[in-house]
């Protein structure tokens, strides 16, 4: 479903990833951990196709991608519902899009915030909005960067359950980056630690 083969990447001259290989089969659920600055987010962005590797290849299986980045970029001039509609435009036919968007806003406790623009929402609400869109597209590959930060215990649990359910029902492949281990217990995700080593980064499963 997702294969990064011997990927190297430098950002502004600083080598971030060196000769890294990671393979996820359909239905795999993997959580990357490791010290900050080691390239977890970069790896996720390469997996999403937002960045291209300098060397090596990234191959994604067919299907839809759901992606919630760390500081979720949202259209600042559109409401929460309109942002959902924008991100679901390709994945969901227009007849059912609005209803589906509302359902997912409700799932993540944003029903009352549907008419808010991002600047009127808290960090946690924006985070949940980005996650709502990532889950609502019905992704075959789900990429989440620190999905639990800014969220209280209740919403951490809700997000973990929703991701788990998607993984079980659709066989969604999940790759996430997280520092918080508590919510992961609900998920049963494989932990992969990224450690600096002389050759770059070593992956420990």
């Amino acid at each position, binding site marked *: 479903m997702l294969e990064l083969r011997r990927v190297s990447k430098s950002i502004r001259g600083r080598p971030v990833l060196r000769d890294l290989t990671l393979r996820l089969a359909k239905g795999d659920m993997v959580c990357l951990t490791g010290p900050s600055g080691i390239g977890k987010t970069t790896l996720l962005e390469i997996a999403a196709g937002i960045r291209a590797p300098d060397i090596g290849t990234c191959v994604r299986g067919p299907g839809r991608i759901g992606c919630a980045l760390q500081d979720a*970029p949202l259209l600042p001039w559109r409401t929460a519902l309109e942002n959902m509609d*924008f991100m679901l435009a390709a994945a969901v036919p227009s007849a059912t899009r609005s209803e589906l968007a509302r359902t997912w806003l409700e799932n993540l406790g944003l029903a009352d915030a549907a008419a808010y623009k991002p600047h009127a929402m808290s960090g946690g609400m924006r985070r949940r909005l980005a996650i709502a869109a990532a889950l609502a597209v019905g992704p075959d590959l789900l990429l989440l960067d620190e999905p639990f930060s800014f969220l209280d215990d209740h919403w951490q649990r809700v997000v973990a359950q929703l991701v788990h359910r998607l993984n079980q029902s659709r066989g969604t492949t999940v790759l996430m980056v997280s520092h918080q281990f508590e919510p992961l217990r609900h998920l049963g995700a494989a932990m992969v630690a990224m450690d600096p080593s002389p050759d770059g980064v070593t992956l420990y499963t």
Partner: protein
Amino acid sequence: MIAFGFSAAVLATIWTLLTLLYGAHLVPSPLATLGCLVGMVREPAMWGHVAITLFRGLFAVALTLVMALVTGLAAGLSHRTMSLISPLVAALQATPPILWVTLLMVWVGTGSAVPVLVVIASLYPPLFLNVAQGTAALDHRLFAMARVYRVPPLRVLKDLLLPGIHSHLLGGLSHVLASCWKVTAVAEFLASGQGIGARIYWAYRMLEMEQLFAWAVVLVSIGMCIEFGLIRPLRRAAEAGRATSA
């Protein structure tokens, strides 16, 4: 209203003083000018000239806007394009309208083509730059997300690009509208037989000072209508847009 009355009073006073100083044959009095203007307004020919100038100006602005949007959006999306063409745009911006008038008179002769093309040549570079800079300043991660979610190009245009450059565009458009009719009038003065600029040229050639002043009043009135009716509301909208997106 008080501000308008005060400004009109100051203008009328200075005007009258100039009439007294230079004589009515060089500076017709405000009353004589008004009389001439009333005579002109009654004739359909005057409205024809006003309509021609307005049409040329607005038609040129519409073309400029379309060209600037298409090329500005494309350039703003690519840093390389921006850096490659920025000296060219700077050169175009530094080119005075009078140079375009001269060249276009030689190339396309007289008629509507010169005023329209001069407005486009003078106002396209700043508006293009406006759109391109507005596009380049957008959060590039939004485009990345649109790519990940495979959002259709039309939706990206409607929901991301156009609202994103909205305040930049309105600011640029207000500048273009403020300049377009002045540039049109200058081009008509030099290169056309019709339109307000051309009428000013004939009044000058015939030393019909009352007509010259009457046309000046018409020109300034149109400018003020555009300023208060179009430009100031546009600027207010642009500032409001900046305030909410900040």
